[in-house]
């Protein structure tokens, strides 16, 4: 066999007798030895590294760990309700606060707090006096 035939042959399957012949040829042929070494070096250079765990998780999330339909619907419903409440809250807050600018709001709050405090303390005084 020529080297070219040997090299092609080397990649295929061999009987034990052919394997012995191939090993004998390798001892005498630098070209085939180099080819063998390069094939092995390629194998070592191409040892796969780990696939990203996020990809594996993504596959499982779409297959084996896919949540049942009713759970997904429940999530959609709960999420939708929460979104509605938040929207309503934001809308309400917006409605309440838009008539004031910040300075007016601060003044208003301090005034009303003051009033509340006086009302409360005078009520407390009355309450204490009753007993």
């Amino acid at each position, binding site marked *: 066999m020529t080297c070219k035939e040997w090299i092609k042959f080397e*990649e295929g399957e061999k009987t034990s007798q052919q394997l012995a012949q191939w090993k004998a040829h390798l001892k005498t042929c630098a070209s085939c030895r180099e*080819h063998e070494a*390069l094939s092995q*070096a*390629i194998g070592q250079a*191409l040892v796969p590294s780990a696939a*990203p765990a996020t*990809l594996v998780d993504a*596959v499982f999330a779409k297959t*084996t760990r896919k949540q049942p339909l009713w759970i997904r619907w429940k999530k959609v419903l709960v999420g939708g309700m929460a979104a509605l409440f938040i929207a309503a809250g934001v809308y309400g807050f917006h409605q309440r606060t838009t008539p004031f600018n910040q300075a007016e709001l601060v003044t208003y709050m301090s005034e009303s707090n003051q009033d509340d405090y006086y009302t409360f303390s005078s009520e407390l005084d009355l309450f204490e006096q009753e007993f």
Partner: protein
Amino acid sequence: MDTQNKSRSDDELVQLAANGENQAFEELVFRYKNALYQYLKALVQDEGAAGDLFQEVFLALFNHAADFKAQGKVKSWLFLTARNKAFNFLRDHKALTSLDQQDEEGNEIWHETLPDDSLPPLEQLTSCETAQRIRECINALPPAQRDVIYLRQYLSFKEIAQMLHKPLGTVLADGHRAIQKVRNSLTQGEIL
């Protein structure tokens, strides 16, 4: 994790997965995830696209496990599916003009005379630096040759030939030609 699944054959796992045994499917994913991801990345040379195709391959396996009849060919099926998806992706993104052209180019090179013993010998093939250079050389190969080099890491030439419906001799020749190209670019520093 079911340790029993680790010792099961691919065929057994697909059968179990088809019957709704989720851990059997997950074992198949663990068994081939690294090689498939590497293969897809090598073909499309884009991590994001490789990740998308990776998910598609395993989703296809999950959805078609029940129809799976080819005994002893789960691995080939996975790599063939990955290969088809990668080539479709490349075609859609105009990165690959035609597979036939790749074959044509390859065949042309095969008919050239192979390098003889006068080429400078390769030294220190196992060093890290060389491993890095080997990867660079392989990734610079035309897609069809890159394909056969990578496929050879996961499948035998016989399996590749069956998978691609090509004669064994053609696949061996493709593989040998690709290795010679790597050798030439390593020894001569030539840009492929």
